[in-house]
């Protein structure tokens, strides 16, 4: 049943606008893969999903589900199931009727419908609510009904549009793992949209990062974290996000504030225009006796970790905010002057896409 999905150079320009909402999207999603589309709001992730669902027209390019070109196929004929952000349950139907709706349209036999609805309900712990109307359910239960409505379909592809964003924080974490486990078990190709990079990193086999309608990078969560293609992906993935410091190249390295970071000559030669952006993840920025001077502005104690926020003056006199993760359990206090040294660094070009040099 499960099918791969392919976006082939897909673009969408809304009528009356010039900037494309999605521009030249090329994306291959393997059979049974869990792919997460992530990005800030307005990046085109939901639009891409809706194009795959057939809810938005496509200006250029093709979308394939399996070998079938569905570019001009109506939503109702695409054999996909979608979970909406606000669940979109049919308010006048009971939970069982909600789940059976699509099957009735497909003219599945009544016994089959009953069996599949019961199975899905058991899987999602909804058996005792089957006769209830959606308004008599809690947010988490409604979310599960929306999932159930998708599961009973046994579709070729699952589409999920921020299905967890209406749940409270604790339930979200719980449901996150449940959805991921369910997807592994069913083995159905899934495209999942979220703006939450933690969700993206924890759930996806691969994660596609979008910005302004352009695909930035698609890779496994680990690879996105370790080898971001540009400064946007680097700062978007990871929490707290990567520190980015504007630096100037000077004899065999770059100056991070008043601290010299040595960098190999061959890599430095790739820097265009003598300036670059140095990236350091908070966990790679250590408090030490020597290094760049930083004035502490805020200390966040999270128990396991302590995050130290501070301002550092760059070589050309600007202030840059930095975050360092401190494991010493002897955190400084606000207003203290501390020194930080980067352990592992990234270097990005200081122009346009801020592409990574290393």
């Amino acid at each position, binding site marked *: 049943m499960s099918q791969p999905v392919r976006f082939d150079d897909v673009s969408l320009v809304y009528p009356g606008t010039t900037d494309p909402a999605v521009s030249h999207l090329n994306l291959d999603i393997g059979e049974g893969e869990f792919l997460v589309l992530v990005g800030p709001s307005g990046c085109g992730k939901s639009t891409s999903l809706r194009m795959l669902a057939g809810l938005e027209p496509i200006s250029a390019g093709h979308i394939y589900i399996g070998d079938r070109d569905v570019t001009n196929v109506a939503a109702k004929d695409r054999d996909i199931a979608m979970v909406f952000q606000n669940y979109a349950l*049919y*308010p006048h139907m009971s939970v069982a009727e909600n789940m059976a*709706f699509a099957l009735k349209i497909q003219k599945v036999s009544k016994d089959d419908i009953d069996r599949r609805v019961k199975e899905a309900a058991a899987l999602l712990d909804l058996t005792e609510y089957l006769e209830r109307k959606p308004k008599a359910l809690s947010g988490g239960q*409604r979310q599960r009904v929306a999932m159930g409505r998708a599961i009973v379909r046994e579709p070729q592809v699952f589409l999920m549009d921020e299905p967890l964003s209406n749940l409270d924080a604790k339930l979200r974490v719980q449901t996150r793992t449940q959805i991921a486990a369910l997807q592994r078990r069913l083995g159905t190709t899934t495209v999942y949209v979220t703006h939450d990079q933690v969700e993206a990193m924890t759930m996806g086999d691969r994660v596609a990062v979008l910005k302004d309608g352009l695909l930035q990078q698609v890779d496994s969560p680990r690879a996105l974290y370790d080898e971001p293609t540009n400064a946007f992906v680097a700062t978007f993935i990871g929490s707290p996000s990567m520190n980015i410091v504007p630096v100037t190249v000077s004899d065999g390295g770059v100056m991070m504030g008043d601290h010299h970071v040595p960098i190999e000559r061959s890599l430095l030669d790739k820097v265009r225009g003598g300036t670059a952006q140095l990236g350091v993840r908070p966990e790679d920025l250590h408090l030490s006796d020597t290094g760049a001077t930083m004035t502490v502005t805020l200390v966040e104690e999270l128990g396991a970790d302590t995050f130290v926020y501070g301002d550092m003056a760059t070589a050309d006199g600007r202030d840059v905010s930095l975050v360092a993760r401190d494991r010493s359990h002897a955190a400084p206090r606000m207003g203290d002057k501390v020194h930080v040294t980067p352990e592992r660094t990234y270097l990005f070009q200081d122009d346009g896409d801020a592409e990574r040099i290393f």
Partner: protein
Amino acid sequence: MSVEAHEMPRLPDVDPLEDKPESIPQAARRKLSSPWASFIVVVITFLWTIPTLGLLITSLRPAADAQNSGWWTFFANPAVTFSNYAEVITGGDTIPSGITPYFFNSFAIAIPAAIFPLTLACMAAYALAWVRFKWSTAVFFGIFALQVVPLQMALLPLLQMFNLGWSLGPIPIFPDLNRPGSEQSLLAGTYIPLWIAHTMFALPLAIFLIHNFIAQLPRDLMEAARVDGASHFLIFRKIVLPLSVPAIASFAIFQFLWVWNDLLVALTFAGGTPDVAPVTAYLANVKGTYGAQLHLITAGAFIAIVVPLIVFFALQRYFVRGLLAGSVKG
């Protein structure tokens, strides 16, 4: 003063809710539920009910009483009879024909004349609200604009169309239904012209009202149904119609009452034929012919209002809100 002395000393922050700004419905409810507002409403209701009360009392008085004294003297000199109703319903010495056949005519006119425009308007409203097609907005505004045309302007052209047919140059729009060799149209003496006329007159407002309701249904519901494999017709029947019951019911009440109480359209299209004339035409006729028989006219009028009252009370529960609760969050 003494009351104040007995009051408990109040802490400055007794009620945390007090600081919250009121929502608009809350404020409206508070203002409207003040004792003064209630008092005014009671007075207005009483004043507006007096004529109906007079009507009811007159209809229950013996003929001589009703003709010789005002209805309010009933309280000093109470005498009740149901013979007025008996005479109006079955016919009697004064009025030869009773109201009963006209009563059924009224139903035969009003029920289809409410169902036809509702059916058409629901489908048109769904299409205008949820089917993407070129010029849909222009079509909607065009229909909306038709409400400006007073129906009186259309009466004679319509009558002519029913009697003689209508064609645009060589293209016939409405056939000439005259029987060969007869002056009368096939439609004469039938309810059909009334149904068509009422449907036409009702459609602009019906489409406008129902469109506005249907357009506010959550977009996600329609999209969920589309993804679930539903065609437009299925979405309309399984999702939109059940959720639009409040709007449909309120318009059904409105349209039924309008047609039930209509005299002008009925006189124009069915005036000459007692077979199809409604209660209103009967009452107008009785009023013209037996104007002095107050006790009979009031009894007839009272029979005529019974149906609107029943319709209103039977369907008012459909005015409930909150049918959409639980569908989409937020």
